[in-house]
């Protein structure tokens, strides 16, 4: 719990979600549930060099991460959105690895909280 750079700013997320802890946990679960299919979409989009899908999925993940104060995931998702916008496949590939790493870090962090 004393992680140096926690993947979630819990206090800020709690404030944004109205101070209801159960509700926040429900939303984090929802985010994790949504992430996997979105990650699959990104993997496919990268293979097909579908930059519109890369940009849109990056945008979606950025928005939901920002709502839950998942700042590292938000930053990676933003990079993905920009890679899509710039049609930069190399950057998109690097970012996908980064995104997955951040997601796994969040999963571990949350399971340690339980």
């Amino acid at each position: 719990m004393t992680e140096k750079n926690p993947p979630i700013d819990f206090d800020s997320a709690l404030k944004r979600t109205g101070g209801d802890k159960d509700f926040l946990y429900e939303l984090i679960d929802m985010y994790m549930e949504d992430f996997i299919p979105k990650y699959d979409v990104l993997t496919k989009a990268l293979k097909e060099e579908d930059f519109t899908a890369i940009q849109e999925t990056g945008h979606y993940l950025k928005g939901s991460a920002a709502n839950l104060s998942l700042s590292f995931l938000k930053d990676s998702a933003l990079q993905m959105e920009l890679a899509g916008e710039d049609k930069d496949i190399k950057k998109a590939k690097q970012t996908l690895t980064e995104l997955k790493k951040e997601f796994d870090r969040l999963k571990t962090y949350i399971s340690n909280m339980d």
Partner: protein
Amino acid sequence: MKSKNKKVNILIAEDDRISSKILEKHITGWGYDVLVVPDGKKAWQTFKKNEIGIVLLDWMMPEITGIDLCRKIRNDKSGKYTYIILLTAKIKQKDINEGFAAGADEYITKPFNPIELKARLKAGKRIIDLLEKLHKQAIHDGLTKVFKRREITRILNEEFQRAQRTNQPLSTIMLDIDHFKKVNDTHGHPIGDEVLVEIVSRITAKMRAYDKIGRYGGEEFIIILPHNSQKSIKKIAERIRKNISQKTIQTSAGPLQLTASLGCTSTENIEASSAEMMIKISDKALYNAKNNGRNCTVVV
């Protein structure tokens, strides 16, 4: 009927379910009625089916984007004004300009700050309430509170078309207070006003909940009675007439005895091709009632 207490419906169009859940929780908590949809197409369908006061639109959505929906809502002239707030992660000046040019009233950057959102919704509600108040003033007669001539004519047109479509009868009554000018000349306009208010109250007491009344001229009123057959129109008109004449009207100048003449028609009786025609025929019937000695009902 007081707009002050009326709840404003808020439509949230947001494809990010986390964001929409947070929005819904906050906004319902602040006492608004909320409808949530996940894309622009459903947002448009919901908007057309419901009376929506404020719309919160995510900019980037599947099917129809928030900005396109914003333009669609502004181009739709069928309903009342809708206050539009764009929710966006786009914060470039050119995007903001585009949002306002499309007809947005406000924009909020994502992730939103609940305190700011609450304040913006309050501002939106204030505008919606004010427009509602102005609209009511524009369509209602200040003295008698019934519809003004333009509005009652619009309603009659609408009812006429509905009656044609559904093959249901529609009736109209044109009512004129007899010798009303004498009241004004003898006792002054304030007493005339008291009489008008009391007579309207006596008319509406005999109307059904879905009948409509409007002030057509100074002391002339029109009553629209949907689904009303030729048989019952005379009965209703007579009830109204008797309710006016049976008891004296208490005014500041003492009790006054007033009567009214009524001209009625029904789509069952006549081959009316328009709402205007119904008015003309009712007016003709009223003219006949006046010629018959007043204080009576004529059905054409």
